[in-house]
Structure formats: structure tokens, C-alpha cells
């Protein structure tokens, strides 16, 4: 590669030890490009270890970003630039790179010892394994040390500035300003030594690029300059958007929010985001375990607050019995599940979509509840509002599925206007305890009777209750009626689902049906295939239980249906059952999000197969 070609978007990956500050570097690059008005999507991918041993393959932490002047929905399949802080970071990422990609590395790190830690028997700098790439060997560490030596930080701390040195260089490459980053550094580090050293490193990296031979031919910025200018945008991570959605929903409904949870990867961040906000009626309770968390949230809802709980798969498993109680007692409750790879502890920092079965079916007895999913970091905001709405409108627990990928990924987000969100149909009827179970005919919601009001006094629990009075009942016909009612209640959610629509394409040929975080990759794949002339459309489901009533109608005009999922086929199985559809499947359970190309190739293959099948059939007929 002699120069970066001018493209609509670029994909850059930073990689190094978990101690190298890779995630920080990535986030700072993200904020800057966002401020420049580019669209973007990121994918942080870090090891399970807190500080994995330096230089090992499993210890590599990576941050990838795609940014550009067009709509960007994925972090990109194949990076065009890789910053590799050490041999391990180079070797584990090599196979993902675009042919001819630019690799920026520090040759001083390729010592015998480091090569050994990375389980390399020969040196990639000399063994020809990088021959198909453009490699810039830059003495990053040395140059960083030189840049900050005047501040007298000491070698170790000085070397830690190298992430900002490289960031300066990469910012230069894309003609991006350093101001945001400098400002951030100034605010972040109280110690002036640290602050000044990092700023110096940032500037030095930038200057290095400008003054060496690099310049100016590789300097580039995405095309077109920016399509988002003038609009109020910011970057947002999925977990933050979700937390904001919950706060917004609480504000709109005038309810205090009690978020009861127990830390677990990758669910903890929402708990962190919501902590320390008591002054605006948002409190968190770190319970002793997931069971206590869901039970405390149920207690909160019983007492008239908005009770919410969160976890990932193993923790949701523990909450199951509690969720059943919320169903039986008909209390509003939002349960967030940030899916991760399993079974059991599995790969906690890796992503998956395999808790759909658990969400829809994973309780004892006939115990239905609404299940919805967020599709992207920014969409998590609206998904959270929808979850709260359902819970309050129908007096039911609701499961909102997110996953490790969306939780940590960032995206550009047109900042929503809080006042514009109307939470409609919240069940505010109160009534008296005599009418404990007088239901809203449209939503089956019972009145929400809150302690503190004399006319609300009642007793409730997990035993079967009389359909009308709410008293304990062992009557067999009543049990049937209550079972039917519980099903009807969840089905009634479908009366409120807005019409299904195609994300892209037309309702002919192949319907690509999916849910959750595969959204970006599928959307891009479908759009590209449409450009290639294929006939297909993309349907992406927010509501997984119940399914939208008009889904069968929408799907009926397609020739074939493909369900794309990061699991062994859980939505496919639900569609077969509920809609009696014949579906094809594309499943990936690797702990990694889909590449656009994987989806595209699969669909191309499928459509080619169809074609040849048609051909054969035509020949035969």
C-alpha cells in the first residue's frame, strides 16, 4: 500500500496488552471522529483476565472502529489499519486484516522474549509473513520516552503514554483534531505530571507523522466529508443508552426507579451507570446475589416503584423462580439480560444470542411473559423504554435481551428529545383492594395497589388466586381460567406492536429475518446484496414474544426465509412453531459478532443454490 485510498469509511483496529490502554485509545479516537461528524460503530474485544500476563496471545485486548461519511452499522469486517503494540497483538489479528492493510508496530517489541510469550518461533518482521501488508516499523516506545522525558515521570509511567503517542499519529493520518483528546486528558488526570506527559505524547505522535516521510501521501479522511453536520449527535455505548432509556422512562412516568442487581459480565455497566443518581429518583441496590436482586426488584414494584433487575445468562437462570413470582403476583418488572457465551460460565467476555429459549420458555409451568430485544447500542435506549412500557401497561415482568457486543460497542446517536417520549397506557388505575383483580380489558392489567393507601390493603402471593377476588384458590376451573388469562395477557401485547416493516429491500425473494445485535451486519449485507441485484428484504424483530401479528403477512410474499442468529437456531425454532414456516438458518456460535461478509457469502450461496435448483427444475419440467 502506498497510500490510503480515499474511501467512504475506514476500519481501524488497535491491539495490545490489557495494560496498554487500548480501550482508552479506541474510545478517544471514537469521540473525536464522532465530533467530526462521521458515523461510526465500534467493537471492543477484551480478555477475561483483569490484567492478563503481558505479551500473551490470550491477553490481547483490541478495539476496532469503522467510521465514515456514509451510514455505518458495523465495526467493519476487515481492518485497513492495525496498530499492534506487541507480537501477540500482531499475530492474533493478522488473519482478520484486509489484504494490503497498513500495520503500525514497534520493532523494539519483537525481542526473543516477546516472541516466545506470543508463542512465535520466528520473527514476523523477517520471516515474510507480513509480505502482503504495508508495515510501518516505528520505534513507538523509544519515541514516546523521548517525548515525555522532560516531565520526569520515570520510565514505566512514561512508557504508558505510548497509547496517546500512537493516537496522535493515527489522528494525523485521518486529519482529525487533537483538541478533544487533550481536553479529555486534562480533565481526567489530576496529577499534572501525568497529564502533561500524555498531552506531550499525543502531540509528539502527531508531529512525528507530520514531519517524517509518512507525510503527506497517506493522509486521508473519509468521503464524503461528513453527512451528519449540523445535527445533534453523540456517541453512545449500548449499556449507557440502556441506562439512559430506563432513566428516561422513569422520568416520563414520574416513578422512582429501583435497580436491583448483582455484578456480572457483561451486564455490570448498566448497574454502574445508574449508581449514584439518587438525587433524581434513581437508586441502585447491589444485592447479595441474583436471587436477592430479582426479589428486591419485585419488592420494589410491590411497593409502587419501578423495579428493575439485570444480569447475564447464568444470573438470569437464578432469577427464574423469582420471575415466576412476578408473573403469579402480576407485578411490573423489567429483567435485562446481557447475553454472553455459554453454557455455564462459558466465555464471559464474548457475545452470543443464545438466551432466547431461556427468555421465552425458561420457567416452570405455563408462565408466559413478553420478550423484546435491542438491536444496536443506540437502539437500547428505545428498547428500554418499550420494556418499561410493557411492564407497566400489562402488569407483568418483561425480559429485554441485549448482549455483550451491543453493551460495549459504541455508535453515533442522534440525541433524543426527552419530552417527546410518551409512555402510553401505563396502568395507573388504582381501585380498591375489593377489586384486586379487576382487569383492564385491553391489557389484562390488574390495578397496582400500593402500600401506604388504606383502600389498597390486600394480600397477595405465589399461590394460585381466584380470577376475580384474588383470594387463594385451588379450584380446578379457576386454575384453567387463570392459565388462559395469563396467556391472553401476554398475547395482548401484540395489539400494541406497531406495524412490521422491512429494514431494507423489497418483500420478494429472500426474507432475512433476525433479532438483536446482528442488525448492523445484516443491514449492511442486505444493502450490498441489493446493490448487486439480488432480490431480498431484511426483517428485524424487536418483539420476540409475542410475535407481531402482521409478521406472517409480511413474510408471505417472500419465496424463502432465512433466519440469521448467533445461536444454534432459537428464533428459527420459534418461527417454525408459532408461524409454521419453513426456514433456512445461518447460525454462528463463536463468541464473535457476524462479519458482513459471512452473511453476504452465505446468502449469495443460498440464492445461487436456489437458482440452480430452479434451473434444474425448469430443465426437468
Amino acid at each position: 500500500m502506498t497510500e490510503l485510498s480515499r474511501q467512504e469509511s475506514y476500519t481501524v483496529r488497535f491491539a495490545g496488552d490489557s495494560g496498554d490502554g487500548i480501550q482508552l485509545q479506541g474510545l478517544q479516537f471514537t469521540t473525536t471522529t464522532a465530533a467530526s461528524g462521521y458515523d461510526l460503530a465500534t467493537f471492543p474485544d477484551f480478555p477475561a483476565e483483569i490484567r492478563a500476563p503481558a505479551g500473551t496471545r490470550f491477553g490481547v485486548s483490541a478495539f476496532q472502529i469503522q467510521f465514515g461519511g456514509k451510514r455505518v452499522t458495523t465495526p467493519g469486517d476487515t481492518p485497513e489499519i492495525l496498530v499492534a503494540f506487541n507480537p501477540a497483538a500482531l499475530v492474533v489479528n493478522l488473519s482478520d486484516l484486509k489484504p494490503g492493510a497498513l500495520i503500525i508496530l514497534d520493532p523494539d517489541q519483537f525481542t526473543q522474549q516477546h516472541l516466545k510469550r506470543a508463542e512465535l518461533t520466528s520473527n514476523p518482521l523477517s520471516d515474510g509473513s507480513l509480505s502482503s501488508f504495508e508495515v510501518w516499523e516505528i520505534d513507538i516506545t523509544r519515541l514516546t520516552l523521548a517525548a515525555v522525558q522532560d516531565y520526569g515521570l520515570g520510565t514505566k509511567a512514561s512508557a504508558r503514554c505510548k497509547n496517546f503517542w500512537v493516537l496522535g499519529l493515527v489522528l494525523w493520518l485521518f486529519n482529525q483534531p487533537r483538541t478533544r483528546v487533550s481536553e479529555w486528558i486534562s480533565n481526567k488526570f489530576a496529577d499534572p505530571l501525568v497529564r502533561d506527559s500524555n498531552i506531550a505524547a499525543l502531540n509528539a505522535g502527531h508531529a512525528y507523522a507530520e514531519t517524517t516521510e509518512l507525510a503527506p501521501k497517506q493522509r486521508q479522511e473519509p468521503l464524503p466529508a461528513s453527512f451528519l453536520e449540523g445535527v445533534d449527535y453523540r456517541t453512545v455505548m449500548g449499556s449507557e443508552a440502556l441506562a439512559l432509556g430506563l432513566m428516561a422512562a422513569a422520568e416520563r412516568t414520574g416513578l422512582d426507579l429501583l435497580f436491583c442487581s448483582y455484578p456480572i459480565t457483561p451486564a455490570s455497566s448498566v448497574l454502574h451507570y445508574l449508581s449514584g443518581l439518587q438525587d433524581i429518583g434513581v437508586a441502585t441496590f447491589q444485592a447479595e446475589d441474583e436471587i436477592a436482586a430479582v426479589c428486591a426488584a419485585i419488592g420494589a414494584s410491590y411497593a409502587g416503584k419501578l423495579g428493575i433487575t439485570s444480569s447475564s445468562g447464568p444470573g438470569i437462570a437464578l432469577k427464574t423462580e423469582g420471575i415466576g413470582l412476578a408473573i403469579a403476583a402480576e407485578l411490573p418488572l423489567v429483567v435485562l439480560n446481557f447475553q454472553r457465551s455459554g453454557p455455564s460460565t462459558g466465555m464471559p467476555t464474548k457475545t452470543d444470542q443464545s438466551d432466547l429459549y431461556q427468555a421465552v420458555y425458561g420457567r416452570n409451568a405455563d408462565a408466559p411473559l413478553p420478550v423484546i430485544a435491542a438491536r444496536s447500542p443506540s437502539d437500547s435506549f428505545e428498547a428500554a423504554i418499550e420494556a418499561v412500557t410493557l411492564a407497566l401497561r400489562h402488569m407483568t415482568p418483561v425480559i429485554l435481551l441485549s448482549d455483550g457486543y451491543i453493551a460495549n460497542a459504541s455508535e453515533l446517536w442522534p440525541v433524543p428529545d426527552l419530552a417527546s417520549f410518551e409512555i402510553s397506557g401505563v396502568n395507573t388505575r388504582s381501585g380498591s383492594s375489593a377489586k384486586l383483580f379487576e382487569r383492564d380489558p385491553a391489557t389484562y392489567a390488574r390495578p397496582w395497589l400500593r402500600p401506604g393507601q388504606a383502600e389498597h390493603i390486600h394480600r397477595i402471593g405465589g399461590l394460585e388466586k381466584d380470577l376475580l377476588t384474588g383470594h387463594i384458590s385451588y379450584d380446578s376451573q379457576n386454575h384453567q381460567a387463570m392459565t388462559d388469562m395469563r396467556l391472553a395477557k401476554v398475547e395482548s401485547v401484540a395489539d400494541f406492536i406497531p406495524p412490521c416493516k422491512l429494514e431494507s429491500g423489497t418483500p420478494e425473494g429472500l426474507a432475512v429475518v433476525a433479532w438483536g445485535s446482528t442488525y448492523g451486519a445484516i443491514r449492511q449485507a442486505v444493502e450490498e446484496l441489493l446493490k448487486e441485484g439480488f432480490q431480498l428484504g431484511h426483517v428485524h424483530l424487536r418483539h420476540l414474544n409475542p410475535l407481531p401479528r402482521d409478521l406472517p403477512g409480511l413474510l408471505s410474499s417472500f419465496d424463502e426465509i432465512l433466519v440469521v442468529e448467533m445461536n444454534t437456531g432459537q428464533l428459527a425454532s420459534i418461527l417454525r412453531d408459532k408461524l409454521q414456516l419453513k426456514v433456512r438458518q445461518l447460525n454462528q456460535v463463536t463468541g464473535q459478532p457476524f462479519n458482513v461478509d459471512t452473511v453476504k457469502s452465505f446468502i449469495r450461496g443460498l440464492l445461487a443454490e436456489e437458482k440452480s435448483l430452479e434451473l434444474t427444475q425448469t430443465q426437468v419440467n
Partner: protein
Amino acid sequence: MGDRPQLTFKDFATDQEVRWCPGCGDYAILKAVQRALAEGGARPENTVFVSGIGCSSRLPYYVDTFGFHTIHGRAPAVATGVKLANPELEVWVITGDGDGLSIGGNHLLHALRRNVDLNILLFNNEIYGLTKGQYSPTSRPGTRSPTTPLGSFDRPVHPGSFALGAGATFVARCADIDQKNMLRLLLETRKHKGSSFVEILQNCIVYNKDIWDDVAAKKNAPEHTVWLSHGEPVRFGRNMNRGLRLNPKTLTVSEVNLEEEAVEEADLLVHDETNRVLAQMLLAMKPPLPVAMGVIYRQDEPAFDESFWGSKTGNRRHKVDSLIRTGVFSQQR
């Protein structure tokens, strides 16, 4: 409270038929609870009873306040949520030795150590009543039950010692049949801010009949239990002729007879509710020493729920809006 009419214990009864076995000790506890609510001036609309599962956990159905009969072992967790959501409420937890100390041990531990303002009554009948008589973690070694036909050999857990070890700020004990003292104790329990833990020795007439009789039966109680009063010398016996003395070398207590031995009241151990070490000694007493009853330990410490919400000073709409605009972490810390 103003001009509210004084309620009587009948005002706290519901229309539900009580479904315990005839002769079950739970009836007496129910009555004492209702009386304590009435005499203590509880406001029904502000009172919540939360229970788990078990015979004991049925109690909320029979008290005309708010009631939540939850799931097995989880009442302290649900109650914590209730109390945190609305610290104005008076929240009671009703649990059994199985519910509270077998499946629910962890939640009990954490409610106690956090000092959530809950009144926790543990009905200890040393058996699983509702599931038909299996031994429980408080059953004495050798207990024969459907799951221990040859006699149990687990070492039991001692409710009071457990609570103390968990950091409880109020640990007390009484017996189902002693209505007068139970009532007095429940009134104290209501007053304590923070978690109050009360073990109630309860008779399961069907599956573990009369296990407390040796200690708590009317005829035995005076000689086999001691009702503690803060700041008073520890005396008991029908004629209050017996007392306890501390051996400081061995850190043990022993019994003395004030009539027969050369001891005076001044030599006796004086009960100090605030001394944890003493509390542990008293809790551990078992026959031939008298079983300790009443408030064994009490310590004033801030309740977890007291300052939970802080003061809601912020302009909520404005702050949420600005968090949406500029990011949570940028503002929060």
C-alpha cells in the same frame, strides 16, 4: 396519628380462615402480633408483612395489613426491596427455621448485616412443617424424620448465634406459649430501628410435638428460662432465687442459688444488652443452664434504608436530559 381511633387486635384480623393445624403454636404468635400492632399503634395501610413459604409463612394472610407471601427463603430479599422502595413503611418478615435458615440463610445474613429496618420473626419449630416433617437445620441431632429415619447427625445451626455472627443489631427470643412476654417483646421489636431478629420457639404439634416443653411449658419456664432485662442482675426461678454468675477466667457462666449459696445479688451477672460478647454467652446457654429469653442484644446503628435515597435535590427532567446529551460518566463522578 392524631385523632385516629385506637385499633384493637381484632382490627388486624382478616376474613380468611386460618389454616394451621388445631393446636399449632402459630395461632398464639398470630395473636401476639395482632396485639402488638394494635397496642403499638401500627397503621394498617403503612404496614407490610412479607413471608416466604412454610406453615409459618402463611401468617400474612391473617393480618389485615399489606401482605406478600413470596417464595421459599426469599422474604428478607423481597422485604429489603419493599423497605428500600418506601422507607416509610413498617415492614415485618415472617419466616421459619427452614425458610429462614435453610434455603434463606443468605438473605437473612445480608438483611441483618446491612441492618435494613425489618422486624424479622423466625418461627423455630425445628422441623419442616408444610412439607410434612423432614428435619430442618435447627433439628437436634438424632431427630428421626422421613429423611433421617435413622436419626439426623448434622450439627444444627443456632438461630441467635447465627444472627449475632451475621452482625444483627437486635437479637431476641421468646416462646409461642408465653403470650404476655411475647407481646412485650414484639413491642420492643417494633421500636428497634434496623433489623430486629426474634427467634420464637414454636410448637409443631403434628411433626415435632412438644419439643420446647422441657424449657417453655408453663410449668417449666420459670426454672428453665431466664427473662433478661437490661441493666438488671440475671435472676430466675419460680421465686427468683436462682441467678447467673460469670467466671471471668473461663469466660463461662454458671448458676448460683441465692438462697442456698453464699452469694448476693451484687455478685450476679448484670445483663448488658449492648455487649456482644455477653450476648453470645447468653445465647449459647442451654439446659442445665436456663435458656435466655427477651432482648439478648441490642445496638443502635443507622439502618441501611435511612439515607438510601438521600435528598432528591436535582431537577430531574433537566438532569436526565443533560445526562442523555452529554453522557452519564462525564457528569456522575
